[in-house]
């Protein structure tokens, strides 16, 4: 226990990076996801096609490959760089990869939410003369969002756990799982308590999310 407590600084550091990655990626993934959804249901065939190709490509690619591409392809080959220091540069590259990947799942969830909206509502909105964008903004998306809070919660939890992949070779963000790996590699910490400690850290992040989203989805459910 002593060795573990001596490392508490590293543990807190690791989870700070995990939370930073999760929060910022979640925000971007949500925004990109909404745009993708709007594109996928839009009347313009080309937009539909572009969004469909994007979603099908990214969500069938392993996240490890996506993040590896961000590190080797975008950073090394294309010279994309977001910050002066390596630490923050890899962080933003990881955020880019994570949000690009997670946006696919957000868009799939939202699209399934749109399918739950009764035809009559959308027809009524159209017959009142609402344009496609008005229809989306005022009628469709608010209801679709409320009916997919549960699935979006699952996506957020998955994202939290997926941030561990940002520790891959090409990026190496110092998030929690990497801190744990480093401790194991040094061989000074007791393995099982350390593992349980880190696991509890992740559970402390994910379980409340699950409960909050479960509660929200019931509270905000659209009663039909």
């Amino acid at each position, binding site marked *: 226990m002593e060795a573990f407590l001596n490392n508490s600084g590293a543990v807190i550091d690791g989870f700070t990076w995990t939370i930073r990655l999760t929060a910022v990626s979640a925000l971007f993934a949500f925004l990109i996801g909404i745009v993708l959804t709007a594109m996928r249901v839009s009347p313009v065939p080309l937009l539909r096609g572009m969004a469909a190709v994007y979603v099908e490509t990214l969500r069938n690619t392993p996240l490890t490959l996506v993040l590896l591409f961000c590190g080797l392809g975008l950073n090394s080959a294309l010279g994309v760089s977001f910050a002066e220091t390596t630490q923050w540069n890899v962080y933003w590259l990881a955020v880019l990869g994570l949000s690009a990947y997670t946006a696919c799942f957000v868009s799939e969830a939202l699209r399934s939410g749109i399918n739950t909206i009764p035809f009559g509502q959308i027809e009524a909105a159209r017959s009142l003369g609402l344009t496609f964008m008005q229809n989306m903004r005022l009628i469709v998306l608010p209801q679709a969002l409320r009916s997919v809070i549960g699935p979006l919660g699952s996506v957020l939890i998955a994202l939290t756990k997926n*941030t561990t992949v940002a520790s891959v070779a090409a990026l190496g963000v110092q998030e929690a799982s990497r801190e744990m790996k480093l401790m194991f590699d040094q061989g000074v910490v007791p393995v099982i308590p350390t593992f349980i400690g880190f696991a509890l850290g992740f559970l402390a992040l994910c379980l409340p999310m699950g409960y909050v989203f479960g509660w929200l989805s019931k509270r905000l459910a659209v009663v039909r």
Partner: protein
Amino acid sequence: MSILRQKEPSRLFDTPGPKAAARQRIYSAFALLLGLAVAAWIYLGFNRTWADVRANPGELVDPSVWAINETGQWSGDKWSPFLDPTLWTGMVLPGMGNTLQAAGISIVLAIVFGLVFGIGRLSDHLWIRLICGAVVEFFRGIPLLMLIFFTLAMPLAANQLLGVPFGTFLVDPLTAVITGLTLYNGSVLAEVFRAGINAVPKGQSEAAYSLGMRKTQVMSLILVPQAVSSMMPAIVAQLVVLLKDSALGYIVAFPELLREFSLIGTRFQNVIPAAIICAAIYIIINISLSRLAIALERRNAQRGKASAKATAAPGGVGASPGGVRGPAADPKD
């Protein structure tokens, strides 16, 4: 171009009239321009000519910027290694074999794990329910990568706890990957199985009990066989998740598909062609599996059965309309 065609008339808009059609053509043009700009940026970037353009945007009209650069990623030299059959037999196929081996063993073990713990959560004994519930929630709630790292650290743990000297046993990456994949996907499948068994009409088990069957008989003869067909789509969908997650083996130096491609990328200095071909292989396998899952789901629907779903299959195939409201599979209820 079937992707551009609408399969069914959309709910969200009418068939465009002449004005709307004209407007849509303008939107399409803008979208096309934007798409082409991004494509051009990527092309030039990997062609290693983007730096020239960024320094002097006037060079965009210079054809030499657009010509395939011999040192860039698009040159023939970078792609020709993939025409060599020995590269495929020597690296790609063994890598794919390892990926499929890890995924195949894991899905079998995960199904067993899922059955045991899924049925355990439906037990009549409170303590079995609690233990199984805790195990399932624990492994579902922590990152797969941590499980893999933990398995790799087992020799160290054995040394610390039992004083087993180092080198007595080693955990190879394949074992670590399979352990991680089994525990995580098994826990997800446990929830799927629980939902599937719950979805069998109550009259079935009541009838079985009234025929004098025991609990074990009811479960093994009546409930599980009927639940299996409703769980097939979810199992196949989970296979997609598992296959993608097996790429985590890259991080612990397990020579699977992604690792082999990264070795190819380093050896021939062709990171981008390697990444593109590697992604294409994963995408083809996964899309075929997803299609299979959808076909199975459709078959169930035709037979009038519901398909079981895990609501929280993280990174999963995504929620389809039926999965949005699946309280039976929702552990939070």
